[in-house]
């Protein structure tokens, strides 16, 4: 009975919904830190510059690549939801969700290729 109730889990569109939620959660957790980092400019250019030099570390750049992926996948996933809800376009959603993930991975990869 429980297995039948949770059979939808693991389907492409369930994974897409989960990716949308988890990416949104990740971005929401990151945003206050992003704002605090930019807010360093209040204390002077040197403070912001010092933070930016700290962010040159490879591990930080990889994290930034992850954030670019989260932002892009959340944008494309959100656009898919807006289209489904507002237009008579319901076909090919699994393919669209897969395409959204693929485009996001490519965008993040290009970002990483540029910053390294």
């Amino acid at each position: 009975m429980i297995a039948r109730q949770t059979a939808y889990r693991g389907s492409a569109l369930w994974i897409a919904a989960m990716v949308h939620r988890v990416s949104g959660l990740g971005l929401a957790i990151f945003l206050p830190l992003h704002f605090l980092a930019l807010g360093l400019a209040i204390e002077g250019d040197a403070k912001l510059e010092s933070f930016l030099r700290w962010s040159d570390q490879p591990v930080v750049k990889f994290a930034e690549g992850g954030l670019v992926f989260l932002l892009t996948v959340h944008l494309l996933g959100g656009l898919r939801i807006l289209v489904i809800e507002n237009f008579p376009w319901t076909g090919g959603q699994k393919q669209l969700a897969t395409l959204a993930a693929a485009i996001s991975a490519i965008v993040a990869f290009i970002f990483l290729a540029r910053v390294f």
Partner: protein
Amino acid sequence: MNVRLYVWQRTTAAIMAPLVLVHIAVIFYATRQGMSAADILSRTQGSIAWAAYYGLFVAAVSIHAAIGMRNVLTEWLPLMERRAGRYAIAFGVLLFVLGFRAIAAVVLP
């Protein structure tokens, strides 16, 4: 999620879609040769356009993220809706305040 929150969630999403696209383009532009404080501030300081763009962005994301956080809290944690709503409002206010502080930091000369 009630209808009012649903409409706010979707409206802020629609507002932010083009803003996020531009933001991604800015990220790519800003990181083309490494980022420096002087580079960022030379673009933003005294710019009413950047202040308006990011002001709208911060206002929309504060509402959007707060409603999303409320949904996560009510669906994934054993929290009553009222308590989840209070945490979500606090989170939205935090984003709004920190976001506008960040804008002031990079726009005001």
